[in-house]
């Protein structure tokens, strides 16, 4: 079909939005994420109590709508009398921040390594890809536990460990996209124009490789939150009394049978957040991948 000049040029952003917004699941995911992000930012104003404050008289109070509940603690309190709602809201801040840091770190390093591997080929390619293969060969959580065991359990170290675990995915993805773009004529014509290697890599090629990376990063965000929660659950991530969703689950283990709300709400929040990111990731993929259009 011959493409004719539209009277008003559609900006790529508007085009992207029209595809993205036609996906209801993705919109719902985006909506939930926006709410969580806002809650995290304004946690200090939104949360009814301080996350560390212990109400000794209200230990294990059930949620407000059940028998024995009080409107002071909407989702009830935990084993030492802290307000679960406040801890969840503050926990969002921590979990999202960690997810963001992990994804940014592994994405940035992955892009650089993948670009170098795809662009230079040969020995650089072999070296980078073999290291990535080795990392991929280890069970991810085990690798993370090993790294944390070496560096010592803390929220920063487990973040570093997880970025290392996710790194190979971004390297491989970037390299594959670079290889499919590098022989296209527009790259050759930039070469003819005298562009340097760095310019070719970052200005000419990279923007055309971003779509699958953005999708992978969104999905990686949910993985990061999930794995961080797992590390927290194992006691290797955030240390008490920090309100992190995973460690909240871990400390609530003993109440699984007696006080269901202490376990259920952190679990539910993790589930919904991960689901929201996955829905949004799928929507992004559909909107950004030209092969799926039309």
């Amino acid at each position, binding site marked *: 079909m*011959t*493409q004719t*000049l539209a009277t008003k*040029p*559609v900006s*790529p952003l508007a085009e992207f939005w029209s595809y993205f917004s036609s996906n209801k699941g993705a919109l719902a995911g985006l909506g939930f994420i926006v709410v969580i992000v806002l809650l995290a930012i304004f946690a200090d104003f939104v949360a009814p109590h301080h996350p560390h404050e212990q109400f000794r008289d209200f230990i294990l109070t059930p949620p407000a709508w059940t028998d024995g509940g009080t409107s002071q603690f909407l989702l009830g309190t935990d084993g030492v009398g802290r307000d679960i709602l406040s801890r969840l809201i503050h926990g969002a801040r921590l979990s999202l921040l960690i997810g963001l840091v992990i994804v940014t770190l592994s994405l940035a390093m992955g892009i650089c390594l993948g670009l170098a591997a795809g662009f230079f080929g040969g020995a650089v390619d072999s070296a980078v890809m073999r290291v990535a293969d080795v990392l991929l060969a280890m069970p991810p959580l085990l690798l993370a536990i090993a790294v944390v065991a070496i560096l010592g359990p803390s929220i920063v170290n487990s973040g570093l460990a997880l970025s290392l675990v996710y790194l190979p995915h971004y390297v491989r993805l970037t390299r594959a996209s670079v290889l499919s773009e590098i022989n296209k*004529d*527009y790259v050759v014509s930039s070469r*003819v*124009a005298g562009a340097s290697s760095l310019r070719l890599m970052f200005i000419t090629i990279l923007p055309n490789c971003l779509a699958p990376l953005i999708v992978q990063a969104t999905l990686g965000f949910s993985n990061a939150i999930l794995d961080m929660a797992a590390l927290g659950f194992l006691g290797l991530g955030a240390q008490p009394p920090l309100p992190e969703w995973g460690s909240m689950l871990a400390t609530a283990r003993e109440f699984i049978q007696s006080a269901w709300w202490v376990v259920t709400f952190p679990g539910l929040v993790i589930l919904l957040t991960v689901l929201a990111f996955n829905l949004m990731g799928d929507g992004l993929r559909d909107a950004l991948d030209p092969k799926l259009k039309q």
Partner: protein
Amino acid sequence: MTDTQSTRPIMQGLGLKQHYSVNQGMMKPKGTVKALDGVNFSVEAGKTLAVVGESGCGKSTLARLLTMIETPTEGALEFDGQDLLKLDKAKRKELRQRIQIIFQNPYGSLNPRKKVGTILEEPLVINTKLSKAERKEKAIALLQKVGLRPEHYDRYPHMFSGGQRQRIAIARGLMMNPKVVVADEPVSALDVSVQAQVLNLMMDLQDELGLAYVFISHDLSVVEHIADEVMVMYLGKVVEYGSTEQIFGNPQHPYTRALLSSTPRIEPEKRIDKIRLTGELPSPLNPPSGCAFHGRCQFANERCSAETPVLTEQSDASTVACFGVDEGRLPYLVSA
């Protein structure tokens, strides 16, 4: 064509060779592909040299050598009297801008994530110290020169049709005031009516700017229209080289003749007696001995499979590499 002796070629290649070594799999020795095997050519300012041949004949390799995307294994490449391969880096970078390329597929040759303005200005950003406003002025001037409008400056490539994209690609090629433009099948991806627009544009620009074109194509009717000289290639070698009148009026090499007779023509009087080739292009990894064409040539004899013919000058000043022509035993030439 009469003043050939008086003008100096703007660009010429002397004995250009490009050999690639290829892995043929485990346990097998590395093979050599002679993508180009001793090619001489020259092109003058304001003239068009057409390079004709089928896939695998080395015409795209030639384009990559001319634009210095690749360095030849052997041979010299002279631009304005200076051997580009022997110059120092800075001088070469400067001269490189005088040779530009236009690609076949206008959908792949423009970066889809950049605006037309950014694409056009890239060579200026890299190679000059012009200010932003000066760059924009130049880009818009060239957009208008290739028949587009200034408001197209802010649009993305996907908003344009194939013909318009090819115009943008031509404008980009002209940003650095080149002397030589290598056009690699520039119209074969376009519809007939659009193809005519682009060919007209290229001829107008040549007249106006004195550009030399190296026009690579498999479409002989386009070549006949635009070229001054024609070089026919087969499996990395030149088999016939002459003026357009000579090649189309009196094709001598059997391969040239076969190409011409395979090209469909609308007007019955332009169709010439068919020479049907049997078989297909031999593998460049394992080229036949002697004349590379002998396996498909109905006039081949034992000498053709044993010895390799060289380009020899004919009475009409064209050069042909064929024993059949040398020995005067090609029936179509005898009867003519």
